Protein backbone atom coordinates (compact mmCIF):
# COMPACT_ATOMS: atom_id res chain seq x y z
CA UNK A 1 0.00 0.00 0.00
CA UNK A 2 1.37 3.40 -0.93
CA UNK A 3 0.50 6.77 0.52
CA UNK A 4 -1.67 8.51 -2.02
CA UNK A 5 -0.16 11.25 -4.07
CA UNK A 6 -2.88 13.63 -3.07
CA UNK A 7 -2.15 16.97 -1.55
CA UNK A 8 -2.97 16.83 2.17
CA UNK A 9 -3.51 20.57 2.02
CA UNK A 10 -6.25 20.24 -0.54
CA UNK A 11 -7.93 17.48 1.42
CA UNK A 12 -7.68 19.52 4.59
CA UNK A 13 -9.35 22.42 2.81
CA UNK A 14 -12.12 20.10 1.63
CA UNK A 15 -12.66 18.70 5.10
CA UNK A 16 -12.53 22.10 6.78
CA UNK A 17 -15.24 23.25 4.38
CA UNK A 18 -17.33 20.15 5.05
CA UNK A 19 -16.99 20.44 8.82
CA UNK A 20 -19.67 23.12 9.07
CA UNK A 21 -23.35 22.07 9.18
CA UNK A 22 -24.57 25.14 7.27
CA UNK A 23 -22.11 24.49 4.47
CA UNK A 24 -23.13 20.84 4.32
CA UNK A 25 -26.77 21.90 4.09
CA UNK A 26 -25.87 24.29 1.26
CA UNK A 27 -24.11 21.47 -0.58
CA UNK A 28 -27.08 19.17 -0.04
CA UNK A 29 -29.33 21.82 -1.55
CA UNK A 30 -26.98 22.21 -4.52
CA UNK A 31 -26.98 18.46 -5.05
CA UNK A 32 -30.50 18.88 -6.39
CA UNK A 33 -29.54 21.65 -8.80
CA UNK A 34 -28.00 25.12 -9.10
CA UNK A 35 -29.32 27.94 -6.92
CA UNK A 36 -28.81 31.63 -6.27
CA UNK A 37 -27.46 33.07 -3.03
CA UNK A 38 -30.94 34.27 -2.12
CA UNK A 39 -32.40 30.82 -2.64
CA UNK A 40 -29.62 29.24 -0.62
CA UNK A 41 -30.14 31.69 2.24
CA UNK A 42 -33.88 30.99 2.54
CA UNK A 43 -33.81 27.97 4.89
CA UNK A 44 -31.35 29.66 7.27
CA UNK A 45 -31.82 32.38 9.82
CA UNK A 46 -28.85 34.12 8.35
CA UNK A 47 -28.01 37.33 6.47
CA UNK A 48 -27.01 37.23 2.82
CA UNK A 49 -23.44 38.36 3.63
CA UNK A 50 -23.16 35.47 6.12
CA UNK A 51 -24.30 33.00 3.47
CA UNK A 52 -21.90 34.58 0.99
CA UNK A 53 -19.06 33.94 3.41
CA UNK A 54 -19.94 30.26 3.54
CA UNK A 55 -20.10 30.17 -0.24
CA UNK A 56 -16.63 31.69 -0.47
CA UNK A 57 -15.26 28.89 1.76
CA UNK A 58 -16.96 26.27 -0.42
CA UNK A 59 -15.69 27.94 -3.58
CA UNK A 60 -12.11 28.11 -2.29
CA UNK A 61 -12.32 24.41 -1.45
CA UNK A 62 -13.44 23.76 -5.02
CA UNK A 63 -16.69 22.23 -3.80
CA UNK A 64 -18.83 24.72 -5.70
CA UNK A 65 -18.47 26.90 -8.75
CA UNK A 66 -20.25 30.21 -9.38
CA UNK A 67 -21.66 31.14 -12.74
CA UNK A 68 -19.97 34.08 -14.43
CA UNK A 69 -22.47 34.89 -17.13
CA UNK A 70 -25.79 35.17 -15.39
CA UNK A 71 -26.14 38.24 -13.20
CA UNK A 72 -27.41 36.17 -10.28
CA UNK A 73 -24.29 34.00 -10.45
CA UNK A 74 -25.86 30.62 -9.72
CA UNK A 75 -23.90 28.22 -7.50
CA UNK A 76 -23.25 24.68 -8.64
CA UNK A 77 -21.84 21.69 -6.83
CA UNK A 78 -18.49 20.42 -8.09
CA UNK A 79 -18.10 16.76 -7.15
CA UNK A 80 -14.34 16.56 -7.87
CA UNK A 81 -12.98 17.25 -4.36
CA UNK A 82 -15.67 15.06 -2.82
CA UNK A 83 -14.51 12.21 -4.97
CA UNK A 84 -10.90 12.77 -3.87
CA UNK A 85 -12.04 12.74 -0.26
CA UNK A 86 -13.90 9.48 -0.87
CA UNK A 87 -10.83 7.92 -2.46
CA UNK A 88 -8.73 8.98 0.47
CA UNK A 89 -11.12 7.40 3.00
CA UNK A 90 -11.20 4.28 0.87
CA UNK A 91 -7.45 4.04 1.36
CA UNK A 92 -8.11 3.79 5.11
CA UNK A 93 -10.63 1.04 4.54
CA UNK A 94 -7.98 -1.04 2.76
CA UNK A 95 -5.58 -0.36 5.59
CA UNK A 96 -8.03 -1.70 8.19
CA UNK A 97 -9.12 -4.69 6.12
CA UNK A 98 -5.51 -5.81 5.74
CA UNK A 99 -4.66 -5.09 9.37
CA UNK A 100 -7.70 -7.04 10.55
CA UNK A 101 -6.66 -10.07 8.55
CA UNK A 102 -3.37 -10.00 10.41
CA UNK A 103 -5.09 -9.37 13.75
CA UNK A 104 -7.29 -12.38 13.17
CA UNK A 105 -4.25 -14.54 12.54
CA UNK A 106 -2.36 -13.10 15.49
CA UNK A 107 -5.25 -13.68 17.91
CA UNK A 108 -5.31 -17.28 16.76
CA UNK A 109 -1.61 -17.66 17.50
CA UNK A 110 -1.99 -16.06 20.93
CA UNK A 111 -4.73 -18.44 21.94
CA UNK A 112 -2.84 -21.49 20.74
CA UNK A 113 0.20 -20.45 22.78
CA UNK A 114 -1.75 -19.43 25.82
CA UNK A 115 -5.26 -20.90 25.83
CA UNK A 116 -6.11 -19.47 29.26
CA UNK A 117 -5.49 -15.87 28.22
CA UNK A 118 -8.37 -13.41 28.00
CA UNK A 119 -11.76 -14.09 29.53
Amino acid at each position, binding site marked *: *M*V*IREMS*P*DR*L*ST*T*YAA*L*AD*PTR*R*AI*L*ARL*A*SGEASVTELAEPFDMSLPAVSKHLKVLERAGLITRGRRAQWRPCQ*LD*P*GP*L*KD*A*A*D*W*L*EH*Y*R*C*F*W*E*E*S*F*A*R*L*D*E*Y*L*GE*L*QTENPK*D*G*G
Partner: protein
Amino acid sequence: MAAETVTVPAEVVIRRIFDAPRRLVFDAWTDPEHLARWWGPQGFAIIDCKAEVRPGGVWHRTMRSPEGNVIRKHGVYREIVAPERLVFTYVSDDAEGNPGPPTLVTVTFADGGGKTRLTLRQTLFESATARDAHHVGWTSCLERFAEYLAKRAVDIR
Protein backbone atom coordinates in the same frame (compact mmCIF):
# COMPACT_ATOMS: atom_id res chain seq x y z
CA MET B 1 -19.57 1.74 -19.75
CA ALA B 2 -20.10 0.40 -16.26
CA ALA B 3 -21.16 2.94 -13.67
CA GLU B 4 -18.31 3.90 -11.40
CA THR B 5 -18.84 3.20 -7.73
CA VAL B 6 -18.47 6.38 -5.75
CA THR B 7 -18.12 6.12 -2.01
CA VAL B 8 -19.51 8.93 0.02
CA PRO B 9 -16.68 10.67 1.87
CA ALA B 10 -18.32 10.62 5.29
CA GLU B 11 -16.89 7.71 7.18
CA VAL B 12 -15.52 4.23 6.99
CA VAL B 13 -17.36 1.57 8.99
CA ILE B 14 -16.00 -1.95 9.28
CA ARG B 15 -17.51 -4.75 11.32
CA ARG B 16 -15.70 -7.97 12.14
CA ILE B 17 -16.12 -10.93 14.43
CA PHE B 18 -12.90 -12.17 15.96
CA ASP B 19 -12.71 -15.63 17.41
CA ALA B 20 -11.15 -14.48 20.67
CA PRO B 21 -12.42 -13.20 24.02
CA ARG B 22 -13.14 -9.49 24.24
CA ARG B 23 -10.43 -8.81 26.82
CA LEU B 24 -7.78 -10.28 24.56
CA VAL B 25 -8.95 -8.34 21.51
CA PHE B 26 -8.99 -5.13 23.54
CA ASP B 27 -5.45 -5.85 24.78
CA ALA B 28 -4.34 -6.45 21.20
CA TRP B 29 -5.48 -2.89 20.48
CA THR B 30 -3.88 -1.24 23.48
CA ASP B 31 -0.63 -3.05 24.23
CA PRO B 32 2.23 -1.79 21.99
CA GLU B 33 3.79 -5.25 21.91
CA HIS B 34 0.58 -6.72 20.55
CA LEU B 35 -0.04 -3.78 18.22
CA ALA B 36 3.34 -4.14 16.55
CA ARG B 37 2.41 -7.70 15.57
CA TRP B 38 -0.66 -6.93 13.50
CA TRP B 39 -1.04 -3.21 12.79
CA GLY B 40 -0.61 -2.39 9.10
CA PRO B 41 -0.99 -4.23 5.83
CA GLN B 42 0.78 -7.49 5.07
CA GLY B 43 4.50 -7.02 4.54
CA PHE B 44 4.73 -3.78 6.51
CA ALA B 45 7.17 -3.73 9.39
CA ILE B 46 6.50 -1.65 12.47
CA ILE B 47 9.73 0.12 13.34
CA ASP B 48 8.38 2.26 16.15
CA CYS B 49 5.22 1.86 18.18
CA LYS B 50 4.03 3.97 21.05
CA ALA B 51 0.64 3.88 22.80
CA GLU B 52 -0.04 6.01 25.87
CA VAL B 53 -3.46 4.54 26.48
CA ARG B 54 -5.13 7.25 28.55
CA PRO B 55 -7.31 10.20 27.56
CA GLY B 56 -4.95 12.78 26.06
CA GLY B 57 -2.17 10.23 25.63
CA VAL B 58 -0.43 10.11 22.27
CA TRP B 59 0.13 7.19 19.98
CA HIS B 60 2.31 6.76 16.96
CA ARG B 61 3.31 3.96 14.64
CA THR B 62 6.13 4.20 12.18
CA MET B 63 6.02 1.55 9.49
CA ARG B 64 8.26 0.52 6.65
CA SER B 65 6.51 -0.61 3.50
CA PRO B 66 7.81 -3.56 1.47
CA GLU B 67 9.20 -0.95 -0.99
CA GLY B 68 11.15 0.65 1.84
CA ASN B 69 8.99 3.76 2.31
CA VAL B 70 8.68 4.98 5.86
CA ILE B 71 5.13 5.92 6.84
CA ARG B 72 4.08 7.57 10.06
CA LYS B 73 0.66 7.52 11.65
CA HIS B 74 -0.22 9.19 14.88
CA GLY B 75 -2.96 10.58 17.06
CA VAL B 76 -4.28 11.17 20.54
CA TYR B 77 -6.46 8.90 22.66
CA ARG B 78 -9.77 10.53 23.53
CA GLU B 79 -11.67 7.87 25.41
CA ILE B 80 -10.79 4.49 26.87
CA VAL B 81 -13.44 2.21 28.36
CA ALA B 82 -11.73 -1.16 28.82
CA PRO B 83 -12.63 -3.57 27.32
CA GLU B 84 -15.55 -1.96 25.46
CA ARG B 85 -14.58 1.16 23.65
CA LEU B 86 -11.60 3.03 22.34
CA VAL B 87 -11.69 6.48 20.72
CA PHE B 88 -8.66 8.15 19.22
CA THR B 89 -7.70 10.70 16.59
CA TYR B 90 -5.79 9.39 13.63
CA VAL B 91 -3.55 11.34 11.27
CA SER B 92 -1.47 9.90 8.43
CA ASP B 93 1.60 11.85 7.39
CA ASP B 94 2.53 11.83 3.74
CA ALA B 95 6.00 10.91 2.44
CA GLU B 96 7.27 14.45 3.16
CA GLY B 97 5.98 14.35 6.72
CA ASN B 98 3.01 16.66 6.09
CA PRO B 99 0.06 15.63 8.23
CA GLY B 100 -3.12 14.62 6.39
CA PRO B 101 -6.60 15.64 7.52
CA PRO B 102 -7.46 14.62 11.07
CA THR B 103 -9.89 11.77 11.52
CA LEU B 104 -11.53 10.21 14.53
CA VAL B 105 -11.61 6.46 15.06
CA THR B 106 -14.11 4.79 17.38
CA VAL B 107 -13.64 1.09 18.03
CA THR B 108 -16.24 -0.84 20.00
CA PHE B 109 -15.75 -4.35 21.30
CA ALA B 110 -18.92 -6.34 22.01
CA ASP B 111 -18.82 -9.58 23.92
CA GLY B 112 -20.16 -12.45 21.86
CA GLY B 113 -19.67 -15.43 24.15
CA GLY B 114 -15.95 -16.08 23.64
CA LYS B 115 -15.98 -14.18 20.37
CA THR B 116 -15.74 -10.44 19.90
CA ARG B 117 -17.83 -8.30 17.60
CA LEU B 118 -15.68 -5.37 16.66
CA THR B 119 -16.98 -2.23 14.98
CA LEU B 120 -14.59 0.37 13.70
CA ARG B 121 -15.85 3.74 12.60
CA GLN B 122 -13.54 6.34 11.15
CA THR B 123 -14.96 9.79 10.53
CA LEU B 124 -13.62 13.05 9.22
CA PHE B 125 -14.25 14.97 12.37
CA GLU B 126 -11.74 16.15 14.84
CA SER B 127 -13.99 16.02 17.84
CA ALA B 128 -16.46 13.45 19.05
CA THR B 129 -18.81 16.26 20.01
CA ALA B 130 -18.89 17.65 16.51
CA ARG B 131 -19.42 14.20 15.09
CA ASP B 132 -22.30 13.38 17.41
CA ALA B 133 -23.97 16.74 16.97
CA HIS B 134 -23.81 16.61 13.20
CA HIS B 135 -24.14 12.96 12.52
CA VAL B 136 -27.79 12.98 11.54
CA GLY B 137 -27.62 16.00 9.25
CA TRP B 138 -24.38 14.77 7.81
CA THR B 139 -25.78 11.37 6.95
CA SER B 140 -28.86 12.61 5.15
CA CYS B 141 -26.81 15.25 3.41
CA LEU B 142 -24.38 12.65 2.21
CA GLU B 143 -27.07 10.33 1.01
CA ARG B 144 -28.00 13.03 -1.42
CA PHE B 145 -24.37 13.47 -2.39
CA ALA B 146 -24.22 9.77 -3.09
CA GLU B 147 -27.11 10.02 -5.50
CA TYR B 148 -25.66 13.09 -7.06
CA LEU B 149 -22.20 11.62 -7.40
CA ALA B 150 -23.57 8.44 -8.85
CA LYS B 151 -25.33 10.48 -11.50
CA ARG B 152 -22.26 12.54 -12.21
CA ALA B 153 -19.68 9.76 -11.91
CA VAL B 154 -19.52 9.19 -15.63
CA ASP B 155 -18.87 12.89 -16.28
CA ILE B 156 -15.97 13.20 -13.86
CA ARG B 157 -13.46 11.14 -15.77
